[in-house]
């Protein structure tokens, strides 16, 4: 049975369990002398039966779906002839893939006899797994549902139990955030540790040459495989720096003007308009940077006698800065608005002009919050991917010249991981090591920034 059909069946069973449970509680109530003899409302008894019917079978179903493909693959490999099993893991994986594809498409022309056999085994295994799953899930649903149903008695505390289950489900959902973080840390960390067991961590962090193309065969030319990440860090910082040069003054000054000078009418129009910039997908900015801004900068540079690369850091940084303007401006806006009016009134009352008040009273008072906002913006710029993938270069140049092409951490992660890859070459694993660096840096920046912002906000409350 298809998983979706099975799922539909389970839902029908659960609905049936609800009505059966509710019916039984009503019948028992009648025998005991009216609904008021029940501990809980009849629908709670229905709900409890539904939970008994649904939860165990859904848990079994999801566990099965998660692990069946891995187990089937192992069994398939076990069934292959010994000489095939002795192949290198990469080649073996390829063979298994071919067999799975042939089983999927049914195109077995040109298959070796052992492959035909393997296809048969695979189909059989899949069939068995499917039948077993269908049987097991439905059986568990029916048995557990029946057990829950048979427990129904007027004095069963159905409401308390259902509420307990409800609370537990809510708790489980909120723990997903922790699971996600743990998942990120583990996935990035494990692959990085494997990477660092092949490439020493000092070579990675302090090396100045990056060329991840590794020779796959011993005799292959051209793959030296250098994994020094310094050029990537420098490139990332250069582009982020350019972005901040654009975004911080523009964002901060817009926020100041909007919160201190503009009347509510102007504010009501300009603020949402600027925030449109934040809602535009980054891939659109990437397209804009690569096809419009980069050629424009190159042509301007050429007309001034400079040689500008068409993948210059300047183009990517500039466009990224435009993207971050509303981010900086709305965060600064919040903190500027949090500065108490009494401070401004005091300063204005002493005779200072509005701009003097802003520069010497409001901004110093709001400074921690603004710094926090800028740190968040920096972490945003460092982690930004699509703009640099489309507008920055792939070549790792160690340079601080914004007119030259540079590459960034995120660009390299994407280029190393897009497409088919196996999980045991340093080339692929390097992406996870870069991801680890990125995660640590952005997490650190966010942590500091949130801390600063939070501390500041409490100051005037």
């Amino acid at each position, binding site marked *: 049975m298809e998983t979706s059909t099975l799922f539909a069946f389970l839902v029908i069973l659960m609905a049936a369990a609800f009505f059966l449970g509710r019916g039984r509680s009503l019948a028992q109530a009648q025998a005991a002398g009216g609904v008021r003899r029940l501990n809980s409302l009849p629908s709670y008894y229905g709900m409890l039966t539904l939970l008994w019917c649904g939860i165990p079978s859904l848990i079994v179903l999801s566990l099965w779906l998660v692990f069946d493909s891995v187990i089937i693959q192992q069994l398939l490999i076990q069934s292959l002839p010994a000489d095939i099993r002795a192949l290198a893991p990469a080649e073996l994986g390829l063979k298994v893939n071919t067999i799975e594809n042939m089983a999927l498409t049914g195109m077995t022309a040109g298959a070796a006899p052992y492959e035909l056999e393997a296809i048969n085994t695979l189909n059989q295994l899949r069939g068995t797994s499917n039948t077993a799953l269908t049987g097991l899930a439905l059986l568990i649903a029916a048995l557990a549902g029946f057990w829950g149903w048979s427990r129904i008695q007027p004095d069963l505390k159905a409401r308390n139990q259902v509420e307990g289950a409800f609370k537990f489900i809510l708790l489980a*959902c*909120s723990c997903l*955030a922790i699971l*996600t973080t743990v998942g990120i840390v583990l996935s990035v960390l494990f692959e990085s540790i494997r990477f660092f067991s092949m490439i020493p961590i000092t070579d990675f962090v302090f090396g100045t040459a990056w060329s991840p193309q590794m020779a796959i065969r011993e005799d292959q030319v051209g793959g030296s495989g250098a994994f020094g990440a310094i050029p990537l860090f420098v490139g990332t910082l250069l582009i982020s720096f350019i972005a901040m040069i654009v975004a911080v*003054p523009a964002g901060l000054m817009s926020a100041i003007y909007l919160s201190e000078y503009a009347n509510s009418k102007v504010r009501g129009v300009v603020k949402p308009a600027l925030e449109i*910039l934040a809602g535009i997908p*980054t891939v659109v900015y990437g397209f804009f940077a690569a096809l419009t801004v980069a050629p424009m900068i190159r042509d301007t540079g050429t007309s001034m006698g400079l040689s500008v690369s068409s993948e210059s850091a300047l183009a990517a940084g500039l466009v990224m800065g435009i993207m971050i303007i509303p981010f900086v401006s709305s965060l600064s806006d919040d903190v500027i608005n949090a500065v108490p009016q009494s401070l401004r009134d005091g300063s204005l009352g002493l005779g200072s002009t509005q701009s003097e008040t802003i520069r010497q009273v409001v901004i110093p008072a709001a400074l921690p919050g603004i710094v926090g906002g800028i740190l968040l913006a920096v972490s945003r710029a460092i982690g930004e991917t699509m703009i640099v993938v*489309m507008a920055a270069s792939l070549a790792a140049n160690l340079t601080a010249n914004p007119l030259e092409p540079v590459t960034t951490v995120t660009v390299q992660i994407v280029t190393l991981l897009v497409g088919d890859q196996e999980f045991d070459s340093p080339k692929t694993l390097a992406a996870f090591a870069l991801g680890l660096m990125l995660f640590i840096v952005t997490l650190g920046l966010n942590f500091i920034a949130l801390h600063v912002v939070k501390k500041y906000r409490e100051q005037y409350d």
Partner: protein
Amino acid sequence: MSSNTQSSNKPSTIDLVNKNLAKRYRAEKRFRGYGIASILFGLICLVFLFTDIIGKGYTAFVQNYIQLEVQLDADTLGISDINDPNQVAMANYMGVIKRSLRERFPEVTGRRDKRKLYALVSNGSGFDLRKQMEADPEILGTTQSLWFMADDDVDTYIKSYSKDGKVFTGRTDEMQQGWIASLIEADQVESRFNTVFFQNGDSREPEQAGIRGAIMGSLFTMLVTLLLSFPIGVAAAVYLEEYAPKNKWTDLIEVNINNLAAVPSIIFGLLGVAIFIGMFGMPRSLPLVGGMVLTLMTLPTIIISSRAAIKAVPPSIREAALGIGASKMQMILHHVLPLAMPGMLTGAIIGLAQALGETAPLLMIGMVAFIVDVPGGVTDPATVLPVQIFLWSDSPERAFVERTSAAIMVLLGFLIVMNALAVWLRKRLERRW
């Protein structure tokens, strides 16, 4: 201020102030000017971005067609029995189209020139003719005057031609331009609304490429994201607002949610590759997997906005419900959630809009594959609209530039509709206490 200025002709304070006043006012004006300039900078960038994309992309919504007199004789097509679907499917449609082109321009001789001539119409014209033949087998043996899609280079040339001024010749040469001019003079070129762009999946031929596959892929991915992230997000928000005791574990959950909201999206892609694909062995390129990755990414947004919405429900409503004997679950399900629903929906729509524009994590889990078929479900390999934009922006053909821009316009259109819906919902349904 110092003592020796006081001793000699001591200027009064008001003089000092007046002396500097003009300077200070100038500084005030400058400061204001900086503010206006930076706002204008932002707005100009916005306008420039939109005009640039619309200017590049609006031409993609029309496509030029070329009219040809096609003689559909059974011999050239190789159809001996019109009722045999196999023969109709395999017939030599391109052959009759090429012949009609040769007849239209009899002066063309030589292999290379002929090849240039054939390049006037789209490579896919044969399929279009087959579709017409299958729809109406009666046309076999007759001579029909039919419209065929112009090739992308020709299409680009005609579009720039009709705009006058600077003509973009691209890869067309003078000979082809002559033929095109003669076709235009004979009224055998027509530009129509580009329906193919909205009906087809991806293609290597720009004129045959469409965004239907990407839109359906985005739709399925968003469906998975919505079905997973909204219930989970709301449940988590309810727990944190209504149940969670103030302890270390709750603090940990909160810190985690706030940090996840600021983790770069590409990290979620790494998670997807390592866990969903590497560990669980899920296939690549599926909207199902994409939706799951985007769920993890949008959850913090949805949880944060749902919590704000739940917080906005006044405690008096909770107390009233509890006071007349409702249980905590009844109080939440019957009173708090319905009142908080508009705010939570707004948050969900904004989170989804964010997910709809997301590209990087989907690149990692293999949604960049070249997929021609329009996906029919969450387990069909698919690509999504932003990834399609990324793929097309890499293509060298000039005609893909306008199609990329057009796809961006469609994507922005969806985003504007979603955000407008969120604003409308907030205005319409939000209650203030």
